[in-house]
């Protein structure tokens, strides 16, 4: 097509101009926008890497100190090193709260998804689905605020927690409530996409409904459910303010579920504004951000691996 045009070439410049205005210009423009998104992602990654590795290159801390030491006393003034940047407490806090929240939320989400799709599809579509979507839209600060004003006093009064209810438990419950809709929605989608033939075959063999659900539907839908769980987990890892409100922000390993601790996002949210740019403290916080970034990349990788496997076995 374009060859033909170039042969006809100069016959009419108006034609080229017309073509430019109606095609090439806009094609170029949308291509630039596509490239822009790639550049944006790359530059976010790049900035994080440059800033985040400062702890190791500029202040010569070791990776194992950052990951496994719990001594945290970084220097705050610019260009002065020599402090300690062990972030084990923050990392452990993140892992613990996210793991617990997953333990709490997954059974509920799975049950809700099964109920929505299999047991009561009518009520599921008209009532549950919209409710879950609305749930998903509620801002995380609001969850945090409810956690702070309702959950924290409740934990304090019921369990007599020492730190007034600010605890690992409170943070995990808030996170669990937050990731519940994500896992539910994606699991429901996965279950809905199980081909009808699977049901027919299973019922034909004389299975009960529960046998069909637990032995056929759930295994087939597993890749989708797994994706939901991972996405929920990555949402929990990235959540900052809601957790910061209820976790208590004390720099110590939690001794029980009822004791306060701290986590990566809360530390970044609370301290970033008070640290001198380029100082040891500041760069250590950037390293935490880099760690969060790497964790979210890892989750995406997991989902991809899962799907490659899933699609391989699904197309029997």
């Amino acid at each position, binding site marked *: 097509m374009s060859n033909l045009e170039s042969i006809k070439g100069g016959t009419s410049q108006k034609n080229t101009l017309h*073509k430019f205005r*109606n*095609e090439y210009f*806009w*094609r170029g*423009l*949308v*291509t630039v*926008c*596509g490239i*822009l*998104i*790639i550049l*944006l*992602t*790359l530059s*976010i*990654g790049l*900035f*994080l890497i440059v*800033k985040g590795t400062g702890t190791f290159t500029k202040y010569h801390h070791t990776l194992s100190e950052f990951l496994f030491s719990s001594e945290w006393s970084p220097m705050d003034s610019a260009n002065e090193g020599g402090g300690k940047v062990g972030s084990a407490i923050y990392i452990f806090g993140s892992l613990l709260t996210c793991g617990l929240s997953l333990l709490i939320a997954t059974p509920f989400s799975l049950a809700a998804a099964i109920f929505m799709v299999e047991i009561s599809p009518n009520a599921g579509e008209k009532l549950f689905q*919209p409710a879950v*979507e*609305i749930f998903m*839209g*509620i*801002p*995380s*600060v*609001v969850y*945090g*605020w*409810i956690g*702070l*004003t309702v959950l924290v006093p409740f934990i304090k009064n019921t369990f007599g927690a020492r730190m007034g209810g600010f605890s690992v438990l409170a943070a995990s419950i808030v996170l669990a409530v937050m990731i519940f809709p994500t896992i539910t929605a994606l699991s429901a989608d996965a279950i809905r996409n199980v081909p009808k033939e699977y049901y027919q075959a299973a019922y034909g063999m004389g299975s009960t409904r529960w046998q069909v659900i637990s032995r056929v539907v759930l295994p087939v839908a597993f890749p989708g459910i797994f994706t939901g769980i991972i*996405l929920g987990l*990555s949402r929990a*890892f*990235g*959540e*900052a*303010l809601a957790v910061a*409100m209820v976790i208590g922000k004390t720099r110590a390993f939690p001794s029980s579920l009822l004791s306060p601790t701290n986590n990566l*996002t809360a530390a*970044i*949210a609370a301290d*970033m*504004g008070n640290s001198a*740019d380029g100082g040891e403290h500041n760069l250590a916080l*950037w390293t935490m*951000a880099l760690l*969060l*970034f790497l964790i*979210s*990349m890892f*989750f*995406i990788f997991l989902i991809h691996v899962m799907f490659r496997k899933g699609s391989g076995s699904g197309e029997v």
Partner: protein
Amino acid sequence: MGNQLFNTIYLVFLSLLISVPIGVAAGIYMAEYAKEGKMLSFLRVSIESLSSLPSIVVGLFGYLVFILMTGAKWNLMAGALAVSILSLPLITTTTEDAIRNLPIGYKNGSYVLGATQWQTIFKVLLPACLPRIITGVILAAGRGFGEAAALLYTAGQSTNINWSNWNLTSPTCALNPFRPGETLALHIWVMRTEGSLNPHATEIANFSSAILVILVLRFSLTARIMSERIKRKSGGSKE
């Protein structure tokens, strides 16, 4: 309170001004122009990583690039840019899906009439999937309203508006995008720390939460009603 509500809406409006054109254009590129291959899969991975970035990390990036590197004070524009980074993936994927799901007849009909590819996209495909795109944009706006972590170090945690001042360059003018502007979601966060200073902090935060939830609810309901209507209209011609 009124000021925070205004800031929230204004900031989301600004962010949509940025993210909608770029997102829709990128979606068009992905659906129509990009060839299946390295470039497209790389773009997909980029969008996926963008959408799963923790918002605090986007906030830090915004703080570094829009505040520290420009040497500016905390301002609404920086916040809007940070929020648009967060809403870009949603708008892009919605647009791409919407265009890809259109029946092939739309395109064929347009090409037969001698339209260029862009004319086909702009005059036939885009109008046909406009409702879907708008649904996506409304969802993105709803998320923008509740965003707080990304605004912590970009839009700032204070606001000062003089409603009788309409000089756009003045830092107290409501419409000046380069003034600090605390949003409702951030206000709740700030009230937590100021609890001891302000005796009404709890009531203020409760009230802010209520307004925020109602705002978000309205938007997600609108999006839901719209997508319901689209489903009914297309009447099962697909799937």
